[in-house]
């Protein structure tokens, strides 16, 4: 698989993660407003999938990140490293929590995913608007360099933002008493 093919594939997966995040938020909100409605029924049905799905998303994001640095040989910039610091542990602790069915992991995982989301959103904005930080590139690996730019807006940090958002939304969809 070429780097271009992998980038299109990962971009589409990122959009899928974004759709999962949106669906999760909408379902949780509607179910909270109408506890006896159909949304609440569906939410109870899919709730057991939330942790495994969040783990799968964090794992795919981690593997995608490693693919870009170790196989495609893209040099990670400073902001890329901050997002890696947030995403890589999620792939481990969400996996363990999914096996143990331990939803209390939310208290530890959500702040990490939240920090990752903030950095990823800032980095996405920087890559979409490279002139906002400066009008020239330094000789090192600048954070404005777009290694990937699919569909006119999907960059690597945008993919990370979708992953963090999906993990956050899925973790938030669990009942507080679980």
């Amino acid at each position, binding site marked *: 698989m070429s780097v271009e093919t992998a980038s299109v594939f990962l971009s589409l997966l990122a959009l899928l993660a974004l759709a999962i995040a949106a669906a999760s938020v909408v379902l949780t909100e509607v179910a909270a407003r109408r506890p006896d409605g159909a949304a609440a029924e569906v939410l109870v049905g899919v709730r057991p999938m939330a942790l495994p799905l969040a783990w799968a998303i964090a794992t795919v994001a981690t593997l995608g990140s490693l693919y870009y640095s170790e196989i495609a040989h*893209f040099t990670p910039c400073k902001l890329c490293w901050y997002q890696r610091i947030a995403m890589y542990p999620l792939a481990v602790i969400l996996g363990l929590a999914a096996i143990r069915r331990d939803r209390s992991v939310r208290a530890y995982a959500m702040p990490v995913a939240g920090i990752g989301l903030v950095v990823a959103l800032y980095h996405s904005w920087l890559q979409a608007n490279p002139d906002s930080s400066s009008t020239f590139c330094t000789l090192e690996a600048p954070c404005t360099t777009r290694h990937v730019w699919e569909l006119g807006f999907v960059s690597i940090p945008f993919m990370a933002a979708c992953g963090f958002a999906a993990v956050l939304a899925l973790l938030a969809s669990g009942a507080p008493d679980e």
Partner: protein
Amino acid sequence: MSNRPRPTPRSAVARSAAEQRRRQAAGPSAPTGRGRVPFVVGGVLAAVVLLALLVAVRVTATDTTAGQARPSGTVVRGEHVYGDVRVSGQALPAPPEDPTAVDPAVGQAAPVLTGEDFAGREVRIGGDGQPTLVLFVAHWCPHCQKEVPLLQAEFDTHGKPPGVRLVTVSTSATADRPNFPPAAWLVREGWTVETLADTQAGKAANAFGIGGFPFFVAIDRSGTVVARRSGELPISEFLGLADRARAGSTAGTTGSPSPPGTTAGTAVPPGR
């Protein structure tokens, strides 16, 4: 320490029995109602992931053949990434960090470069008695990626600035950075400016003391540096640099942008 198995708590036994009764009441293993939802959602997600993979393979297979077309008018040819570069003369110092400070390279003799383009044809920069504007670009730099089409659109519409030789130096080429190789990028942009391929170590860039990308060096007909600029330039400032190379003024020039159509202390014809 005893090896006897720990007795199961009574409450756990009761829960287990209740669970078993519930399962028996639910009948054979086929999930129904609410229990079916994870299977449906999981199946849909797996199908969407598979579809995404198929789309990615299909789309990129089409792109590979579509990207080969070379825009008409381009002078960039060849597939080399790096070229041999010979430098004669003293290397220029790095530009000052403060953009308003006086650039120490202004007034110095520019080094003369002899190298080759992406096809291995000889390219010389300097030593020919022509006012010259040199543009250093890096294929991975988003500011260079914006500047090149901006300039090419100007050349296509109004032509190149008269009386000034334009030369590009492709430098800092790295296979692990995006938009590689540089020749393919410049061909794609229909770039009509003669281009020298720098060495892998950036010999040409080092000789001109570049501090960022894109980087512009204006040289007058005597081979003296009259101005250096780094960063994206609007067309008016680019033409202003060309004017300064043509006019050959060096007095009091700094690294900061000058008002369009002027040089320090010397009026020059306004840019287009």
